């Protein structure tokens, strides 16, 4: 084709520059987001890979031979000896400082040992520790009696290659074999797993793919909307080209090139923008820790691929749209008639729902495990539902506008309802981004409601106080030694009481009794009321379980009941300040008499929030924010182009005396009707899909009422819509002024 003709087409007139800038800008934002999200997904996966070793659970450190002839009985446990190729490892599930969970692994190894512990040169000596840089900084900036005393002597830092992120709190301490075996919680490890998700890898990947689709879809919509900018003016120009002899193919290819050029410029700019924003993006904490900046890099291949795909797709779509518009040499003199949407538009949505429901039925009702079928059904179903909402929108919008048109009373209502009724596809396109965003937000809100943090228990008499810490006492410690440790702890600042509970044997032993015995004088410090009139009292051992929520009552125990019993539990009451809590924890854990790490009823809250899937919740809120922001941007762009495309006729209406306020009301209605029509559908579908996903992944999860965050996000979306529409009001005044009505 003639290059001159191309130049004419691309930079035809000065007014074209605004449109080209709009396309380039929109594509730049889109490409930048795609690359950052891609980088984010890569980063999270790299992060999970590096942290995989922390999931290693090892093999039992004791062998329990079955007793022949009685399958229910077992013989005495015998320790499995350690070799040069194995180490003993103990995991502390509640190594907590303030409100942060520290990943603590205690190791005992033979010297020399061939086991390679990730991130450190050799297993630490007993009493020494390796810490991640972030943890080491924390240790150094905190009084030792609150944190440092728990670990011993600093031996070095753990290498980044074994840390999920720069903020990861990981500690590897050395311990003696005897100490670990005595605790009863050590396992034998020969090497470390590299699978970050264990058995739920498929489910995790499914969720990740669905999340990616949910976030990318609004980006795609944005790109699709900006490339359609100024369609009406363009049609006129193409008609002129057709008149002077250009073939439909020529016009289509001009449209393609005309879109491809600004898309390319925008995409390249987007790549640069993404690179520039990477350090800022790395500062966003996901699941409690930031991401290494290098993890966010996508590499030149990925960037080129994104640029190529975006440019190619936008060019093809522009060419296709132009050829579909059927521009003749006489132009589109009559209003372009959209095909009336029919019920067929419900098909993709129904198909998507059917796919997801099928997947859930397979998993839950038939209880067969077919990962090769379930994941594609869930992911495919989700994508179909996303597309289905965009497809069904115009049909629903038209149904509503038909009623609206009949009932319309004011000029603004008649004009807006007529336009929506005649061009439901175009008007719905303006709000499609926002509708999708609301859907995505609802899905995320529904899905993350299952992983909501458990509320911290309130202080109630009859239960362990939230400000207290307790730990069971190990086997073989004399009451005197335990008592001494309790006294030492009790003298620390902020610690109010130290109570010891007694029983027939250490609680993890077979001979442990169902009750814990206390001195009645100690009971008030544990928060008990209605204390029986006796010297010794007893309480059920379930007092120590975090799932116990009903207050327990004390029962009187025979006097002198404590004789012959051993200490089984130590409870420290604190004043509730974080410093005192950490001091108590450090004191107990380094006392040498406790069998388990000190825990507080508050810890459960932290632990539950560290589930694997929780990482997705943060991603989900990030996704929500992106989706809503993009949707607002798309709505502003689409509303603006709806004004620009009609500036002549709207200008003439103003000239006839129609007040600007009526024009504003028209524009507002044209955005509000399709938005509100599909909004409720979006919300409902969002929660349905979330429920399907969640039940499809794990039947122990439940979808709960969404958090206030959700309503904030929803309100924010609507505010954004309002802002987007309001932003175009200035445009209305400017573009419908006298100049717009001149005959050119």
């Amino acid at each position, binding site marked *: 084709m003639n290059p001159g003709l191309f130049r004419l087409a691309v930079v035809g007139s000065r007014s074209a520059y605004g449109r080209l800038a709009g396309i380039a800008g929109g594509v730049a934002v889109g490409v930048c987001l795609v690359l950052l999200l891609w980088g984010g997904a890569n980063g999270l996966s790299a992060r999970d890979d590096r942290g995989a070793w922390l999931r290693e659970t090892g093999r039992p450190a004791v062998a329990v031979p079955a007793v022949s002839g009685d399958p229910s009985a077992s013989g005495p446990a015998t320790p499995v000896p350690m070799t040069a190729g194995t180490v003993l490892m103990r995991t502390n599930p509640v190594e907590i400082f303030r409100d942060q969970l520290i990943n603590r692994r205690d190791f005992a190894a033979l010297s020399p040992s061939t086991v390679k512990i990730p991130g450190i040169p050799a297993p630490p000596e007993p009493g020494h520790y390796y810490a991640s840089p972030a943890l080491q900084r924390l240790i150094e900036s905190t009084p030792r009696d609150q944190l440092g005393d728990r670990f011993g002597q600093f031996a070095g830092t753990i290498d980044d290659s074994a840390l999920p992120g720069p903020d990861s709190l990981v500690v590897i301490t050395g311990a003696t074999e005897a100490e670990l075996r005595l605790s009863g919680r050590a396992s034998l490890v020969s090497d470390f797993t590299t699978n970050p998700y264990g058995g739920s890898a498929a489910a995790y990947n499914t969720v990740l793919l669905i999340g990616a689709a949910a976030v990318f879809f609004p980006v795609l919509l944005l790109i699709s909307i900006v490339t359609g900018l100024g369609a009406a003016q363009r049609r006129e120009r193409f008609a002129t080209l057709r008149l002077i002899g250009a073939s439909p193919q020529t016009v289509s290819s001009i449209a393609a090139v005309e879109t491809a050029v600004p898309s390319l410029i925008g995409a390249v700019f987007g790549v640069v923008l993404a690179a520039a924003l990477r350090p800022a993006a790395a500062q966003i904490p996901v699941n409690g820790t930031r991401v290494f900046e290098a993890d966010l890099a996508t590499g030149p291949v990925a960037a080129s691929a994104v640029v190529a795909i975006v440019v190619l797709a936008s060019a093809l779509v522009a060419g296709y749209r132009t050829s579909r518009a059927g521009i003749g040499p006489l132009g589109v003199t*009559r*209003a372009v*008639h959209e095909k009336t949407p029919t019920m067929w538009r419900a098909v993709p949505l129904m198909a998507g729902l059917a796919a997801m429901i099928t997947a859930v039925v397979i998993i839950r009702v038939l209880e067969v495990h077919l990962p090769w079928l379930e994941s594609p059904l869930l992911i495919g179903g989700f994508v179909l539902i996303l597309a289905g909402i965009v497809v069904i929108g115009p049909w629903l919008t038209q149904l509503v506008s038909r009623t609206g048109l009949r009932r*319309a*009373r*004011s*000029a603004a209502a*008649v*004009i807006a309802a*007529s*336009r929506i*009724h*005649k*061009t439901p596809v175009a008007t719905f396109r303006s709000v499609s981004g926002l509708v999708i965003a609301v859907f995505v937000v609802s899905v995320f809100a529904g899905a993350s409601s299952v992983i909501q943090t458990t509320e911290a228990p309130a202080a109630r008499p009859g239960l362990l106080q939230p400000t207290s810490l307790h730990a069971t006492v190990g086997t073989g410690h004399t009451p005197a030694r335990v008592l001494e440790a309790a006294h030492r702890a009790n003298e620390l600042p902020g610690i109010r009481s130290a109570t010891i509970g007694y029983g027939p044997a250490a609680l993890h032993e077979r001979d442990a009794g169902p009750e814990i015995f206390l001195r009645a004088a100690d009971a008030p410090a544990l928060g008990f009321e209605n204390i029986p009139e006796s010297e010794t009292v007893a309480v059920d051992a379930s007092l120590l379980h975090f799932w116990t929520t009903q207050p327990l009552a004390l029962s009187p125990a025979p006097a002198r009941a404590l004789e012959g019993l051993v200490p089984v539990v130590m409870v420290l009451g604190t004043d509730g300040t974080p410093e005192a809590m950490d001091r108590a924890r450090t004191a107990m854990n380094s006392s040498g008499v406790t069998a388990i790490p000190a825990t507080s009823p508050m810890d459960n809250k932290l632990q539950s929030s560290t589930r694997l899937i929780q990482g997705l919740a943060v991603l989900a809120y990030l996704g929500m924010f992106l989706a809503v922001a993009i949707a607002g941007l798309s709505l502003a762009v689409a509303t603006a182009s709806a004004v620009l495309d009609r500036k*002549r*006729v709207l200008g*003439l*209406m*103003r*000239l*006839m*005396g*129609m*007040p600007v306020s*009526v024009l504003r009301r028209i524009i507002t209605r044209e955005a509000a009707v399709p938005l509100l029509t599909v909004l409720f559908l979006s919300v409902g579908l969002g929660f349905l899909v979330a429920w399907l996903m969640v039940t499809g992944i794990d039947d122990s999860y439940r979808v709960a009422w969404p958090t206030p965050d959700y309503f904030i996000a929803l309100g924010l979306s609507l505010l954004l819509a309002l802002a987007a529409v309001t932003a175009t009001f200035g445009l209305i005044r400017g573009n419908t002024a*006298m100049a717009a*009505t001149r*005959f050119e």
Partner: protein
Amino acid sequence: MSTNDTAAPILSARGLHHSFGQTEALRGIDLDVHAGEVLAVMGPSGSGKSTLLHCLAGVLVPDGGSVTYRPAGRSAVETSALGEPERARLRLSDFGFVFQFGQLLPELTAADNVSIPLLLAGTRRPEALRRSRDLLERLGLDGLGAKLPGELSGGQAQRVAVARALVTSPAVLFADEPTGSLDSLASENVLTLMLELVREAGTTVVMITHDARTAAYADREVIVRDGAIGAGYRVSA
């Protein structure tokens, strides 16, 4: 002819000056439009006809000079001294407009298009639609009220525009090349029907045209040349 030299003119312009940037569109125009007359404004392209019409109709405020509108039974207003909201209200209530083309909202039916000015003025929709259909019938468009502008011929669409301009019974009808994109027969149809209605109602008409046969429907014509009323202007006998 209904021109009445003793009565004050319904619209009078004095010393109108207006520029668009460096271009002087109007350079000192005096013009009186009498109640009930049909005035043709002629002149070559770019002579300032449309600018004159826009100043007379209170669409534009001239850079210099004044425009006075004297509605029957109300006190005179200097429209060139009003703010845009007041002028918009005046245009809506007292003036009607017909343009060359592209003035109908493409998504609205003919009847809805005609009813918009009534709705803007606060008329209830059923009443507005009834009056719109009546007027369309008088313009020979019976049964076409439910059609969209795209489904009408050029002449029919222009008659819908005339109906919309007249549906509020304006005192002055401003027409800018109302038949500019029609063939002879269609434009004759539009003009005949339009003038029949305005003469019956006593509506004053200011009509821009460069076409002598269209101007021949007027009671008199003025010629605008280079932003001034042509030397040949005189009230014809």
